[in-house]
């Protein structure tokens, strides 16, 4: 099956007309990535990296300066109506019409897709139930907390039962319980066959949810891949457990700790493994386990951002 999203060398430059400057700033520089059907794709990057700009370009809020993007095979500019009929969008820090209640707003969104009357009321009730907002249906949006607005935003993005969801920072501003509920909802939607493209800077959440991630830094795509692919070369240290070693056994550059008659050895990097194993054997010891300790996404991400910045991106 074709990719749900294909971004090809998408570029966005802004000219600062407001300050009478003719200089243009490149916010997105030839971004390319693909999202496969049924996956949860995390679009990660530090603040100001270009995540929201990319999403705005995909949703027709801003026009790309060059490059293309296709959603479900349709060009986002030429076939924007087709794209929008089958896509659900949650903006960052959503803010909705003060003068409407939660229920009225969802029915308004449903009407824009041609869902009206009893069908709209039914759909609204289902969505409110899904996001845990049923008791707040009659609450004016101006009285909603940030978390409630986020849930309302999620509900409106699902009003047309879309195949593809584009969510900008869906868990930001939520308390731990709210975050868990949104994450559970994302996994539930994935089970129902939806594809989710979401931006985040909350990396443990992304790590728990994503099939693949893309890292954007300074308007350029830095890495795209599955978590095992990205983290495969990022072994931080190797933990070796050995026994029957003589008292005072030590390895150059490695930390050791005696635990329940066994020696726990921490090796810095894979290159020191072979010499260490050889030395253990020579000392008459036996190896019980060798466990490479991989970097988590947060550390990997911080390292990638640092590398990108050092490279001048």
């Amino acid at each position, binding site marked *: 099956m074709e990719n749900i999203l294909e971004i090809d060398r998408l570029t966005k430059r*802004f000219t600062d007309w407001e300050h009478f400057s003719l200089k243009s700033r490149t916010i997105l520089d030839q971004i390319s990535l693909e999202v496969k059907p049924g996956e949860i794709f995390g679009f990660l990057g530090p603040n100001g990296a270009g995540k929201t700009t990319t999403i*705005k370009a995909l*949703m*027709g*809020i*801003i*026009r790309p300066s060059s490059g293309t993007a296709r959603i479900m095979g349709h060009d986002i500019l030429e076939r924007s*109506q087709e794209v*929008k*009929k089958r*896509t659900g*969008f949650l*903006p960052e820090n*959503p*803010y*909705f*019409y003060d*003068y*409407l209640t939660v229920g009225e707003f969802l029915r*308004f*969104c449903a*009407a*824009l*897709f*041609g869902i009206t009357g009893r069908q709209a009321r039914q759909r609204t009730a289902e969505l409110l139930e899904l996001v845990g907002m049923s008791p707040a249906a009659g609450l004016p949006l101006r009285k909603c907390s940030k978390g409630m607005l986020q849930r309302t*935003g999620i509900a*409106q993005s699902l009003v*047309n039962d879309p195949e593809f969801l584009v969510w900008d920072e869906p868990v930001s501003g939520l308390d731990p319980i709210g975050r868990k509920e949104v994450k559970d909802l994302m996994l539930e939607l994935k089970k129902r066959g939806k594809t989710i493209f979401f931006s985040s800077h909350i990396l443990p959440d992304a790590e728990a949810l994503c099939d693949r991630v893309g890292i954007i830094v300074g308007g350029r795509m830095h890495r795209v891949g599955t978590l095992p692919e990205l983290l495969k070369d990022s072994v931080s240290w190797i933990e070796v457990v050995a026994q029957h070693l003589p008292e005072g056994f030590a390895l150059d550059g490695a930390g050791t700790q005696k635990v329940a008659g066994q020696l726990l050895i921490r090796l810095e990097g894979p290159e020191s493994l072979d010499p260490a194993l050889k030395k253990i054997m020579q000392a008459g010891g036996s190896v019980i386990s060798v466990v490479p300790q991989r970097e988590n996404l947060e550390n990997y991400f911080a390292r990638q951002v640092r590398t990108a910045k050092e490279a001048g991106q």
Partner: protein
Amino acid sequence: MRRIFTIAANTFRETVRDRVLYGLVAFALVILPGSRLVITLSVGQEVRILKDFGFGAIALFGLLIAVVSGTALLFKELDKRTIYVLVAKPVKRWELLVGKYFGLLATLLLAFLIMGITLILTLLLMGGKPDGLFFLTIAGLFGQLAVITAVAMLFSTLAAPALSAVFTFCVYIAGTAADQLRLFADRMPGDLLKTAAQAVSYVIPNLQNFNFRAESIYNLPVDQSKIWLMLAYAALYITFALTVASIILERKDLK
């Protein structure tokens, strides 16, 4: 069409809940005591003066609603970023603009109904009664403001509300004196200046096409062709203003 109606209905709800109607209550409070003042000042001319005063007040309050709401509606959508949700749905930008325009027009119509009824009641209290010309004048005032609302929305795609409101108000003033403006343009020295002044005078809406106040107050006959001219001119000018506004909005990055 359905999407335009949905947006129009929502805009109507927005403007009505946005305390615009409170201004109309103020209007009712002004016109009724105002009429008593008129009676004491103009013996024998009460009904005429009241009509003139009432039409002026309707035009002023209507203008306030048209300019304040017309220039702020789109800006609020952009400023509060509520437009992101709309644009990401299968809504074309011109549909958004036209929907908002008709929503505001519906609010204006409601305001005219309330103000018109208040004026009629005051007129009846003073022994006068509304005739066909009375209603034609009200319709003319509504036509003027329908055009001005479109102009306000056009400016709102280009500038912030305060600046758009000033521009719209200037267009209204110039439009109510459009015939004089054209005479003035014809008398400009130098071909270039004359052509430029004439061009400006033709771009500014001629709101005198909508003015039946003198006919209504002095019971003068109205040529039916003037009514058709008013309708055609309003339709053309509104289409022109909204088309230009749509083209601008279509090309705009909604940051």
